């Protein structure tokens, strides 16, 4: 479910030149063409969709390096939000 949504947002906001279906969950998104601007757009879309806010310490390249990394970060934030 989360994986599908992340992939959807990535397709919509990431401006990747390659087709997402061919991209593994651990594939390097920067190598696949994710730009700095694309990662910012994606970050804002993830916040909107999952009703979370990325804290400053997650606003870096590592957080958005792969689909798995993004899922892990968003899962963590959703968990924190629901626990609060």
């Amino acid at each position, binding site marked *: 479910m989360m994986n599908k949504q992340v992939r959807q947002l990535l397709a919509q906001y990431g401006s990747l030149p390659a087709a997402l279906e061919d991209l593994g969950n651990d594939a390097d998104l920067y190598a696949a063409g994710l730009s*700095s*601007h694309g*990662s*910012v757009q994606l*970050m*804002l879309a993830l916040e909107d969709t999952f009703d979370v806010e990325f804290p*400053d310490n997650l*606003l*870096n*390249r590592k957080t958005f390096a792969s689909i798995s990394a993004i899922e892990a970060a968003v899962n963590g934030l959703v968990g924190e939000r629901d626990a609060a």
Partner: protein
Amino acid sequence: MDMQTSSLLDRLFSAGLLIDTGVDGLYGRSGAFEDVITRFERLIDRFGGDDNPEAIRFPPGMNRAHFEGSGYMKSFPQLAGTIHSFCGCELDHVNLLQCMTDGEDWTTEQKATDIVLTPAACYPLYPTIAKRGALPAGGGLFDLQSYCFRHEPSKDPARMQLFRMREYVRMGKPADVMAFREDWMQRGTKLMEQVGLPVEIDVANDPFFGRAGKMYKNNQRSQNLKFELLIPINSVASPTACMSFNYHQDHFGKTWDLKTEDDETAHTACVGFGLERIALALFHHHGLDSGEWPETVRQALWG
């Protein structure tokens, strides 16, 4: 604002080096101040001239379409300055004068012109060079200087709203562009040594706007895309950036469809000198009377 900062500005006013206009960050310059900048630019020429850059001088305003295409508003909306003019009829003029007489805001009906104040000396360059077609073999090297505008009023004389930036810009293959930047980090240090200024070079980021900006800043730092040459002016603890060394990767290449001779997207880098900041550093370190500066410094600048 700490006491030290306001006193440096006051001392510059008292010495007549800078002239108060009533707006923070907008100053007149004396002949002595300008002479230092002229001489320093000649020193820059001695370090960079042998590379045979193509010199281009743009006025401090740029084509609004080029400004819009550059993406500047995505990153630095808070710093941009647009030029607006009166475009109305005679009745609008009467109303405008009435507003001024009544002390009301007469600027609301001003319309945006096709000109935007140049935010960095190299911004007009990329679309200009892209228009020529693919770069020649070996890429391109350019020598620029322009007044630049950034809307950030401050009493810190090292943070002016209108200031001059001298730049060398390299366009071409990634390795060539990165070698250019590396080379200038060493040249910059040597150059400042010749005029007796203490320097350090550190990784840096641009003042990107908002939360998205936080991410741009972190990305820029983690990829070592920007370095600054820092010199203490107002404070030893937080020295002032007097030069910057920027690797844009393929950002401007992609933005303007700028190609290398073998049809790859060009990479670009620039090295910038903050001319007023360097003059301020010289006055701060060697005294407000340039005639009394150490002989070695005078020799380097006046020969």
